[in-house]
Structure formats: structure tokens, C-alpha cells
């Protein structure tokens, strides 16, 4: 079981620029995000029937972080707080 944050939904374009999350060409505010990140990820469109999930620990190298398109069918719940 993985606990990840949904940052974009089907058809939206997502990318990372110097650690900033960009969705549909707009920089997103992420108050929950506490540590510096240097992630860069070229733009990509969220696949059909999927959401794009990313964890909050983005101070770790992007290569080691588990994130990406997740099928809606795989979502089993939400955190309670």
C-alpha cells in the first residue's frame, strides 16, 4: 500500500521545474511541501483513467522516488487526517 498525494487528474499536463510543480502551465502552491527540491521532469499528460500521484518527500533524488500515473481502480482510500 502506498500513501501519495494526487497532484493532477486525467488529461492535465504535469511537469517539475527546479522543484516547482507545474500543472497545465501554472505553478502550483504547495504549502505542505517543506524541504527544498531540485526536481526536473519534462511535461507529460496524465493518462486516461489515471491520476498523477507524488509523495511529499521531494528532497530525495527524483530517480529514487516512486511517483507517476496511477489507475483510479487502485485507489482504496484516503488518510483520515
Amino acid at each position, binding site marked *: 500500500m502506498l500513501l501519495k498525494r494526487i497532484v493532477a487528474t486525467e488529461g492535465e499536463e504535469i511537469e517539475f521545474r527546479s522543484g516547482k510543480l507545474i500543472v497545465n502551465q501554472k505553478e502550483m502552491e504547495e504549502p505542505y511541501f517543506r524541504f527544498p527540491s531540485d526536481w526536473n521532469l519534462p511535461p507529460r499528460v496524465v493518462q486516461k483513467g489515471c491520476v498523477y500521484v507524488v509523495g511529499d518527500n521531494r528532497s530525495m533524488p527524483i530517480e529514487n522516488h*516512486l511517483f*507517476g500515473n*496511477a489507475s483510479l481502480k487502485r485507489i482504496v482510500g484516503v488518510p483520515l487526517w
Partner: protein
Amino acid sequence: MVKMKWVVLAVLAVVTSIANSACFLQTEEKKVKKQFRHLSEWASKERGETPITMAQRAQKIGTLFLDPCEFKTHIEPFSEALTPDEISSYAMRGRSLFTVLDLVFYDMKIDLSEERVAKVTVTVKATGRLKDGENIKEIHELECLLKKNEGGWLFSRFEVVEVLKR
């Protein structure tokens, strides 16, 4: 009255056959789970394992697989069909890299809708320590296929599922 008797008997026959097939499926499910328990037990390694135990376990692992068994993973792009001997040999080499290894299967879903075939979706967690001191923790979802032959349920396919696609 006679008709009623036949209706009751027919209902009883249907109920009995449903109960029998449910019981049969339950038994088969237990046998499939047992193969995963064996794989977990024989692949895991405790500190100070002797070379004889290591060889025995590697050989036992080979007995759980059909000839050939397909393996597919996206992590290190790999897709190959291996014989039980080759699997034992890989297991031997793989386990020898570790001082301690623990392999656990959980969240298992077994589909026995096809005759003599079990489709299993399962999560595997491998934790251990390499001989150079590095700690390993890997969790992956697997899709496995087991087929039933004279020797019981044997693994025929292993595929690592890519849960998150970048």
C-alpha cells in the same frame, strides 16, 4: 407429493454440489498459498547459514517451478523463460549476496476460475542486508500464474507490475 419429493431432492443435489465445489476451491486455494509460503521460507536467509543449507534451499526453490517458467520485470528490463535448474542457480547466486534476507508475500488475491490454472496478484516485500553492509528494502506487486500438474501447483509465470508509470 411425489413431485415435491423430486424438487427437494434436486435442491439438495444442487446445494451439495455447490458446497463441494466451494470446499474444493478452498482446498486448492490453500495449496496455492502453500507454494508461496514455501518460496518465502526457502528464499529467506538467516545469518550464518551453512553452504549445505544454502544449496538445499536453492534446490528446493527449483522444485516450485514449471519447466520453463517465464519471468518479466520492467525494473531492470528482463524477460526470459528459465528452467528449474536455472532458477535454482539464480537463487543460489542471489542469496549468496546477502547475509540476511526476508521475503514476505501479502495482499494475495487468487483467481481459480480457469481449470488447473491459478492467477495470483500479490505484493512481495524483500528486506535484507547485503554482504557489503548495504540494507535493501524492495516492495513490488506481482502477477503470478500457477498451473496444476501431477506434482501439484507450480509457478509458470512471474511478472512485476508497474504500479506507477511516470
